[in-house]
């Protein structure tokens, strides 16, 4: 079975600073996809970034980037130039060939003005 672990229940960052959210996962498969989702207080789940396991290049999306270490099974999210609107729950997620998405427990990010 796949597991996804987010070891930081809460993180805080000063506005305009950079923060990194950690995620590790466990799988025996070689072909899979990883995601970071954001859930603001509105409760809506929003896709932040996506990474294919077969790609060595780290995905980037504007101020969001990942550090994907396949051998270490690590998939951290870096948010640069943090903004107040970045405050939310962030979920790391893994999808395998069976097409079942497994989520980590989430990290609550607080942004201080």
């Amino acid at each position: 079975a796949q597991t996804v672990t987010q070891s930081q229940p809460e993180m805080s960052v000063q506005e305009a600073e950079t923060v990194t959210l950690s995620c590790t996962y466990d799988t025996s498969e070689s072909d899979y996809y990883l995601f970071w989702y954001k859930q603001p207080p509105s409760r809506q789940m929003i896709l932040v970034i996506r990474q294919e396991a077969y790609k060595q290049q780290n995905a980037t999306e504007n101020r969001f980037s990942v550090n994907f270490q396949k051998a270490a099974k690590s998939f951290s999210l870096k948010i640069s130039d943090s903004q107040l609107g970045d405050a939310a729950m962030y979920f790391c997620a893994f999808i395998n060939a069976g097409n079942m998405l497994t989520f980590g427990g989430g990290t609550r990010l607080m942004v201080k003005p």
Partner: protein
Amino acid sequence: DTAVSQTPKYLVTQMGNDKSIKCEQNLGHDTMYWYKQDSKKFLKIMFSYNNKELIINETVPNRFSPKSPDKAHLNLHINSLELGDSAVYFCATALALGYEQYFGPGTRLTVT
């Protein structure tokens, strides 16, 4: 137009009742899902439905049943509601394997 919609947004009901939550998508996706988010924010997949093939998470009680009247809809029917069913339920869709999932706004179910 909202890509994935759920109704109702809030549902309060008593133990033992039967209720349904509706999900509709206008993205033309083949795959739809139901997730449960508990009070600790933990998200767990309940069902995956792809081209009429249903994949069930074996930990889901059989009081829960997804029903798909057509490709654009995957409704969640719950029989004999229990207190522990209180949670936020999310519907999601995806174009294909590995593609991002688009989530509905969620339905907060409260069982009293």
